[in-house]
């Protein structure tokens, strides 16, 4: 009696969207390499500064200055060299990575939450409400996002800008538009399907239908888009840093500092190269993972 049941379960499990996607993702070498690389970068950035601090008992490896060893080229004692205040560049690159990754993650999360709620309401109710809500999105879309981000960043004072909160706010505010559009499109196609009608017949309320029945079905697309938003946000932050409006110590800040010390006479190349390499590696892997996820979750590529 029990055996057929487990069989059925096995078949159901074997054909679920996520299992399929996982199977296809595993075949995509580049994505796996990207994911491993990303994990490495995250781990090194998360624990690197802590470990370096331990060996320097009690000193703050990121901020402590040693003017006597300023602008040293990479060597055994300073793997990534030092900056003009003699700070270990390795520690600063890793610490900057923490902030860059955090910004990417939280701003994306904020934009996804706003976008999903907005888009699902517009798509689910449809009609005039949808048109009005999407008009607002169109309007904001017409404004170049760099423009908005810079103006929003200016609302905060210099001291506030050293904390990452303003930048979460500014980047989250502009990045939700695309999520909203994508989710709305998905919800529009889902809301007339049988399972939604079934839920309604059983007396489920609108909110329950949206959050329990429709949104789980849009999850794949949202995950893919979110993975591709993280690198976009990190990149955007680096532009802001370059313009002098960044969020304190990030890869973007280090890269733009590195740019300012590149000149034909005496170039401190390590100050540009190391943060750039870390930044590029992270964006590379995130893009590869995002592309791989998209291919894996796209039903059209399913065999």
């Amino acid at each position, binding site marked *: 009696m029990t055996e057929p049941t487990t069989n059925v379960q096995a078949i159901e499990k074997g054909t679920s969207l996520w299992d399929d996607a996982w199977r296809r993702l595993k075949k995509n070498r580049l994505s796996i390499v990207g994911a491993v690389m990303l994990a490495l970068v995250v781990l090194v950035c998360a624990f690197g500064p802590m470990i370096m601090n331990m060996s320097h008992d009690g000193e703050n490896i990121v901020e402590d200055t040693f003017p006597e060893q300023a602008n040293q080229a990479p060597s055994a004692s300073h793997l990534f060299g030092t900056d003009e205040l003699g700070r270990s560049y390795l520690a600063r690159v890793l610490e900057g990575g923490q902030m860059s990754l955090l910004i990417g993650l939280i701003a994306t999360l904020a934009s996804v939450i706003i976008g999903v709620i907005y888009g699902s309401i517009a798509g689910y109710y449809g009609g005039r409400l949808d048109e009005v809500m999407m008009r607002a999105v169109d309007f904001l879309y017409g404004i*170049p996002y760099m423009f908005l981000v810079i*103006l929003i960043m200016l609302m905060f004072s210099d001291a506030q800008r050293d904390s990452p909160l303003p930048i979460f706010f500014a980047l989250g505010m502009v990045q939700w538009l695309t999520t909203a559009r994508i989710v709305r499109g998905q919800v529009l196609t889902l809301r007339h399907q049988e399972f939604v009608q079934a839920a309604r017949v059983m007396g489920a309320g609108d909110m329950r239908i949206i959050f329990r029945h429709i949104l789980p079905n849009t999850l794949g697309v949202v995950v893919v888009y979110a993975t591709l938003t993280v690198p976009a946000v990190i990149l955007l932050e680096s532009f802001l840093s370059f313009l002098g409006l960044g969020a304190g110590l990030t890869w973007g800040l280090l890269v733009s500092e590195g740019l300012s010390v590149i000149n034909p006479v005496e170039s401190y190349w390590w100050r540009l190269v190391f943060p750039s390499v870390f930044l590029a590696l992270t964006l590379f892997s995130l893009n590869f993972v995002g592309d791989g996820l998209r291919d894996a979750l796209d039903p059209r590529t399913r065999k």
Partner: protein
Amino acid sequence: MRGAVIVVGSIGAVFFLAMGLTVGLWEALVLLIGVAFISSMLWYPPHVMRIVGAALLAVFLFAFLQTIAGTVPGAVIAIVLAVLAWRFLPVRVHRRVGFMVPSMVMLIFVTTILMYMAPGSPFAQEKQTTQQALEAQAKKFKVEKTALAFFGTYMKGLLADGTMGLSVKVQGRTVEQLLMPALPVSMSLGLLALVIACFLGLVLGIRAGLKPNSFADYSSMGVAMIGISLPNFVIGAILLVIFSYSFQLLPVAGWGTYGHLILPAITLALPYAAYIARLARNGTIEVMQQDFVRTARAKGLSEQTVIVKHALKGAILPVVSFLGPATAGIFTGSFVVEKLFAVPGMGQWFVTGALGRDYSVVLGTAIIYFTIITLFNLLVDFAYAWLDPRVREEL
């Protein structure tokens, strides 16, 4: 639908309250009226929409023309054009105009609010001055106390006098005097970058898409990935080191000769070339699997004819729809590139204007960018409809 009204109503109310508390009640109210006005157009029947669209077009044209032709001729031309538009243009164009013109006014308003919420004032860096001197300055440069008042004065200046106001930081100059020399610089830089991005992206993308999973595919997509994954100011710096410092082929920075245009344009174009390459690759792969391509091959056409006459169109479509966002990105991406290469374009004015709280300069650049990008989006939509008969009716 009742649930929708409750949900959206409560969200709207929270927004309105938050706005009222942070920005000011009147500002929030005006914003609400603006949103309601733009939204209300969705309900207008066609003949009303034609009138509203034509009227808005007249206002926009008048503000623009009077700076060129003078007040009275400007008004006459604007009215004539608007009447022609009312009579001959299809309703869908009026709907676009009815969205674009109020959007620009809203943009001015929102930008003003954001700038007034930023701490500091245009006169913050001046030497110690008395309260009266500051007030006299504010009066001279028409910097009002509240965002709403400033918006009113600014719109009045724009519509009645045809001026974008005085710059505070560059004294004795109006904003249009500052921006007019910068506009061609930014335009030529942006357009050249756009052309490079399209050309490079299409070549790489189609090359990759015709032979998926070949060396051509991997090498093109590898290049594209670099374009997407490195901030373009780093790419620009690398180009500078190679071409200007090491080989001394091109000037380091500045403006004036064609040589000055090359590196900034390439730097600006690369990320978008990369996106276009990826889009073109996917489009090509998809279109090459279509039945009509098989038919074309089956009737004995050469591979080249199949690609150029049948497949290319399908590969270009996704790229064309990306051109709108790409234009916006390229024109505002110049904030960074102009700074890196010391190009005297509009991006510089926006950034320095925003940092120095030079309100009219920021608004001036906002208006020009918004106009360029909206007009370009319109062009892209028409190009898309021309290429793809399926969307022709929807426009």
